[in-house]
């Protein structure tokens, strides 16, 4: 290998953070150029290939301007994978390719989708939001009305309650991170605080729940506790600076930070204030978790802390020995991610990862950690801790608590085994 053995030894002794080659998280940050250069093996023994002095694209004018930009032709493989029902192509999901993305923001065209009966082509001029039930004044709002209300923006993840459900299977699924955990995405959402509209209609004392309904062909309805509605919910109109995409609820969706995706009702057209939940299909037959006792957890709204290493992960291959930057995502519906730990020896020892700013509540948090791989067999894993003290569990702990048939709310630690040849597979440990 191209490394200078002496430097490698020095480095390991000085910066080793835990077993399996994990290095101090501050290595990249604090040590500056000298050590960074050293860790990459100093000067590579190979020389850069002599390229032509001017590539073809540098010898002629490029393409003209575009009204709406698209990714490079060389990035065509970065897409959502679609899993739909043959008899009902509008019923299914598409996944965010988390293994292809960096940072914390999901591009709008790659936000995951879950539709029950297709994406409606809603004319915003004709769309209305009706707020009624246990209110003093049942009121109707047009989209152009709502656009004149005071708004707030926040970065926030949305995660489907059924995300990562392949983890319940007996055998570890061998697929890219995005097609296992990519029913989670993170955007900057901008909209009118729901509390503003609730104040305008005037809540009657007996109201404890809001039944939200979408205006698509499935007209999905679901019950949301009123205290959450007042706390931090938004009537979202914008996503990452532009108006919502049709598949994300254009022209109006509910944003329920940190709670199951299904509550973030898209194409929102009605809010019904009620004393009790409506007991809709999606809060009884679905989005409830059967326990080994035969009883099921209902209204288990909060998405518990989760983390996963996105780089390296299944589908990548380590083709050299030396220094790598492990990178991953962590999030918790309870609030802020307090800490992420990474293990390179299957969980025997752990090192604390660097959390990249901004670290925000109910938001994707990017973590990174330098790691030296010298061709050894390793198992990489990460675990998240949030500000409330909630910890991402080992898979065995989760199954001991919930059994294997809950389907929803799978948040166990994810393990990647790396062979001497640099091949990566998903394992249960």
């Amino acid at each position, binding site marked *: 290998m191209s490394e200078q053995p002496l430097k490698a030894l020095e480095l390991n002794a000085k910066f080793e953070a835990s077993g399996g080659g994990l290095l101090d998280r501050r290595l990249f940050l604090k040590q500056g150029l000298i050590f960074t250069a050293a860790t990459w093996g100093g000067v590579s023994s190979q020389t850069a290939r002599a390229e032509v002095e001017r590539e073809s694209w540098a010898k002629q004018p490029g393409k003209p301007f575009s009204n709406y930009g698209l990714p490079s032709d060389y990035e065509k493989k970065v897409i959502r994978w679609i899993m739909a029902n043959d008899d009902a192509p509008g019923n299914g999901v598409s996944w965010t390719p988390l293994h292809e993305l960096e940072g914390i923001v999901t591009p709008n065209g790659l936000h995951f989708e879950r539709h029950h*009966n297709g994406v409606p082509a809603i004319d915003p001029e004709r769309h209305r939001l*009706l707020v009624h039930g246990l209110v003093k004044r049942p009121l*109707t709002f047009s989209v152009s009305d709502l656009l004149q209300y005071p708004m707030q923006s926040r970065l926030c993840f949305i995660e489907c309650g059924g995300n990562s459900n392949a983890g319940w299977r007996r055998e570890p699924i061998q697929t890219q991170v995005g097609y296992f955990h990519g029913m989670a995405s993170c955007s900057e959402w901008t909209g009118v605080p729901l509390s503003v509209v609730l*104040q305008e209609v005037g809540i009657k004392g007996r109201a404890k729940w809001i039944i939200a309904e979408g205006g698509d062909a499935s007209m999905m309805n679901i019950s949301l506790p009123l205290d959450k509605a007042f706390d931090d919910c938004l009537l979202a109109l914008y996503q990452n600076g532009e108006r919502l995409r049709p598949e994300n609820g254009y022209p109006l969706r509910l944003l329920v930070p940190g709670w199951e995706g299904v509550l973030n009702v898209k194409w929102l057209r009605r809010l019904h204030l009620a004393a009790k939940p*409506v007991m*809709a299909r999606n809060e*009884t037959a679905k989005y409830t978790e059967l326990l080994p006792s035969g009883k099921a957890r209902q*209204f288990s*709204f909060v998405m518990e802390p989760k983390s996963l290493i996105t780089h390296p992960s299944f589908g990548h291959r380590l083709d050299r020995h030396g220094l790598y930057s492990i990178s991953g995502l962590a999030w918790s519906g309870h609030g802020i991610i307090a800490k992420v730990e990474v293990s390179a020896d299957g969980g025997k020892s752990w090192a604390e990862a660097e959390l990249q700013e901004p670290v925000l509540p109910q938001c994707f948090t990017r973590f990174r950690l330098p790691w030296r791989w010298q061709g050894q067999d390793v198992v990489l894993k990460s675990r998240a801790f949030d500000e409330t003290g909630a910890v991402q569990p080992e898979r065995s702990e989760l199954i001991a608590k919930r059994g294997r*048939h809950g389907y929803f709310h799978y948040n166990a630690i994810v393990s990647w085994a790396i062979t001497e040849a640099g091949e990566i597979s998903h394992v249960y440990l």
Partner: protein
Amino acid sequence: MSIFKSLLCFSLGSANMVVAEELIGPGLGLQTPPAMLTQWNRDVFPDGTGLPLGRGTAREGEAVYRANCIGCHGPEGRGGSAEELAGAEHSLTGDPPDKTIGTYWPYATTIFDFTRRSMPLPNPGSLTDDQVYAVTAYLLFLNLIIEHDDEMNARSLPAVVMPNRKGFIDSYRQADR
């Protein structure tokens, strides 16, 4: 944008000042005509609130099911490409558990609410209220919960006691306490 904010200032002692801000809107909501309220509100609650006039039996619902549902949900509610609705072979503690309307759903009113709003998938909203009552009765009959000729209407449907009525633990309110 101070017109959007009502500022509440509390003076605490001599030096401390706490400012609570509450956003308020421009008040553009329009009064809603009662006809629109009844037309738009299709929520059906477990106590029957929201159920429309109308009626139907399983005998009548079988025809509705054959014409509108069988293609995806299969004969007698099983064996199709879409969710199994009836005919569970084992219980909720089986491996794997068998979740159907009969073994899992806690309220019969949910069948009416969901079918009327979301089904049949290719043309939702196309059934009359009588047809929705009838196909609801048929699904209850297939799950051995009511008889072939029992009439389902706004009074009888909420009175149906589902086998798994007590099968749920409210984890939200539990966590609250």
